[in-house]
């Protein structure tokens, strides 16, 4: 009763099956990792090419390609998860059910072996997940950073050259655009008071879309300072966030009031997050 007798349990076939299963699992993940590495290494120059040739302001062709590659990696992850569920965990459950009780002298040794097998398999799977994270970040960073500063400078120069060249559509009087606008706005004709609608160029409209990324590029050194601090210093994050939003407001002053609310929310979210290690 309760398996408390000193009977010995000896099952060399089971040990051999465990060894083979472990070996197969490791080999299977090795193969998946090799394929993933090959695919990502070959994809990096292709991603860069697509990114550089993509004339779309939102770089959507690049995004499509990146999404396709993420999908491939995700398929590998799902495949590994399925095999782990069916061939590792299911196998462990079946074997554990056949073994003598854990509290018996005979069963304890085999349960310990089975547990070691489980931990080994999970640890190997964790390494696989780390490689997925690494390869994903390689793909995400493959295209490098867009030179937003030059684009912004070009738009400012373009605005300076056109700001005095508009005439009122009603009376033909000259209109000077008082400041750079990134979205359509009403401009009053100083002669006939007609409200003209000024629509900025597509390039100028894109500045609004890229303003945050540009501000982040300008303050990336402050973010790095925060990320390198151990334990992570919330004051450094606040310093980065304030500078980033100040830069953002400098680029798009019209959005300062809205951005301030966003700043406070991000600060609040960060102080309530648990990632301070």
């Amino acid at each position, binding site marked *: 009763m309760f398996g408390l007798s000193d009977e010995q349990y000896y099952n060399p076939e089971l040990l051999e099956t465990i060894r083979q299963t472990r070996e197969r699992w490791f080999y299977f993940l090795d193969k998946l990792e*090799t*394929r993933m590495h*090959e*695919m990502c290494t*070959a*994809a990096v120059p*292709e991603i860069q*090419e*697509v990114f550089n*040739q*993509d004339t*779309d*302001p*939102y770089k*959507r*062709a*690049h995004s*499509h*390609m990146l999404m*396709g*590659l993420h999908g491939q990696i995700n398929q590998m992850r799902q495949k590994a998860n399925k095999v782990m569920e069916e061939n590792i965990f299911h196998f462990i459950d079946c074997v554990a059910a056949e073994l003598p009780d854990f509290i018996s002298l005979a069963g304890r040794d085999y349960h310990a072996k089975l547990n070691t097998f489980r931990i080994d398999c999970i640890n190997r799977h964790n390494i696989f997940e780390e490689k997925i994270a690494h390869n994903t970040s390689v793909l995400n960073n493959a295209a490098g950073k867009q030179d937003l500063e030059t684009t912004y400078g070009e738009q400012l120069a373009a605005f300076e050259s*056109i700001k005095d060249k*508009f*005439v*009122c*559509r*009603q*009376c033909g009087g000259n*209109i000077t655009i008082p400041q750079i*606008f990134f*979205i*359509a*706005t*009403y*401009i*009053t*004709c100083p002669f*006939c*008071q*007609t*409200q*003209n*609608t*000024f*629509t*900025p*160029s*597509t*390039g*100028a409209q894109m500045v609004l879309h890229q303003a945050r990324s540009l501000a982040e590029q300008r303050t990336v050194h402050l973010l790095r300072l925060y990320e390198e601090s151990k334990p992570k210093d919330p004051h450094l994050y606040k310093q980065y966030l304030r500078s980033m939003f100040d830069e953002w407001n400098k680029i798009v002053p*019209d*959005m300062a009031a809205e951005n301030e609310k966003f700043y406070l929310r991000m600060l609040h979210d960060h102080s309530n997050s648990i990632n301070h290690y």
Partner: protein
Amino acid sequence: MGDNEEKRTLTYLQRLKQKAINQEHYGGQIKQEEAKMEVRDCPECGAGRAFRQGLTACAYCGFKFMNSRLTDGVHIKKENNS
């Protein structure tokens, strides 16, 4: 990496690349347009749109340019309601 394996990866990437480039963008292509100035004339009396207690109605004949009420935005404000 075997030759076949390498070829397969490259073929896959080439296909993916072509698909990514040829895929139609959601919302269509972005048209590059220059900055422009426009004005909306009143369809009733032909007057230019002038500010008189707001912009949603014609300052001269009262024709309603829009029926919706404006709320505060970046450049458009509640005061623009006639």
